[in-house]
């Protein structure tokens, strides 16, 4: 038994890099999800789907999803939400930078741990959008939209499960698997 273990290849399981179709397709679908006619009275609870998926690909496929993609997606969101051009772009770029910086650490956590660590990022994103709007001269601000941050953190788990499966990734990271053994 031990011999088998020693003979078996050690180290993290190799995962094929995510294809461009998967990355951009999932981002497009998430973006369209955000465009759906959500009921007005619950709109403030609806998280930013494309932002969640963007962070996922920032962490798991940085070669596809970098700062440029974040900026483009942010500008598109600006157009869709009818806010100042560059507002979401700036926030997305900053968030993507943060995610890219900590991605190696995050990759070794299970989705719940990741969600906990990303929660400040999600909430911070909503807060940054609100504060930037405030700075840009908006006077009426719906602070309830901050609730979308925790919602996004909660949604991180199903998004991870789904995209892990689509990308052919093991559901548990190599480090966690090593701990299990």
């Amino acid at each position, binding site marked *: 038994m031990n011999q088998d273990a020693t003979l078996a290849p050690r180290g993290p399981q190799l995962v094929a890099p995510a294809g461009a179709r998967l990355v951009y397709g999932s981002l497009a679908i998430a973006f369209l999800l955000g465009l*759906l*006619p959500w009921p007005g009275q619950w709109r403030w609870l609806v998280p930013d789907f494309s932002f969640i998926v963007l962070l996922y690909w920032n962490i798991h496929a940085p070669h596809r999803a970098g700062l440029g993609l974040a*900026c483009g997606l942010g500008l598109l969101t600006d157009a869709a939400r009818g806010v*100042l*051009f*560059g507002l979401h*772009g700036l926030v997305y770029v900053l968030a993507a930078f943060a995610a890219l910086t900590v991605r190696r650490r995050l990759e070794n956590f299970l989705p719940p741990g990741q969600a906990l660590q990303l929660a400040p990022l999600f909430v911070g994103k909503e807060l940054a959008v609100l504060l930037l709007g405030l700075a840009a001269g908006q006077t009426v601000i719906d602070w309830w939209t901050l609730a979308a941050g925790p919602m996004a953190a909660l949604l991180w788990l199903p998004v991870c499960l789904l995209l892990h499966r689509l990308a052919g990734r093991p559901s548990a990271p190599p480090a966690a698997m090593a701990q299990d053994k």
Partner: protein
Amino acid sequence: MFVRVMGLPLRLSLYVLLCLVLMTVDARYDLLHQVRAGLTAVLHPLQNQLARPFRYLQEAFDFFRIHGELLRDVHRLQAERRELLLLLQDRELLQAENLHLRALLDLDTPPGYRAIAVELIQVLPNPFARKVVVNRGSRQGVAPGWPVVDALGLVGQVTRVYPNSSEVSLITSPEQDVPVQVLRNGLRLLVSGEGQDRLLEVRFLDMHADMQTGDILVTSGLDGRYPAGIPVARVLATEPPRHSPFARALCAPLAGVGKQRQLVILQRMPEGVQPPAGRP
């Protein structure tokens, strides 16, 4: 030859700068209007298409919701209609009662008697006698033997008295006999109950007695129970003697015996006492 890839912080600052410039330009100038217009020209139809299935769904839900509301309304209105019909029925009842009460008020009490208005509580399910219970008793001064009338004629007499109610034997009760006389010629007779609501009988009639269909029988006052002159019955038919030496006559009570809810007990005043001036 080496291609220098820009570091992450550098790229970050470039993008941040780009976004800041865009924000400033968008806030201060109208330059980006065309860009925004182009993007929304794509986004809005897309949004519209995305919303379409939800609109259909909403319409379907609305259909069922409105259907449910209509059903609820129909049920509510039907219930209301039933209640209104009941009220209407009640009103008709009240009107009839009112008419009857007015007739009772117009009733002339015989001299020496005082009228006590009573209301029927219960028709006793007695298989042997026709009796009803009215809502006045010994506390109100009712005593056994007092006649009970309504606006049209004699109904019966009080046979049992309880504190707050009394039992009235109707003249249609088989054991009840009323001394009467024919209004037309003064012929004195006894009319007895048959145990049927609309039938009285003169049992032992002389076969040569002068009695015709349509004759009115009134109390004769001979027994000292009933005051004289209260209408009792109308003769329906006379039968010649068949199995017995006596003829008999069938009569219909004039009063609404067993029908009316409001009745009057005639209280006999002691000799020399004048009845109160007012009506009951």
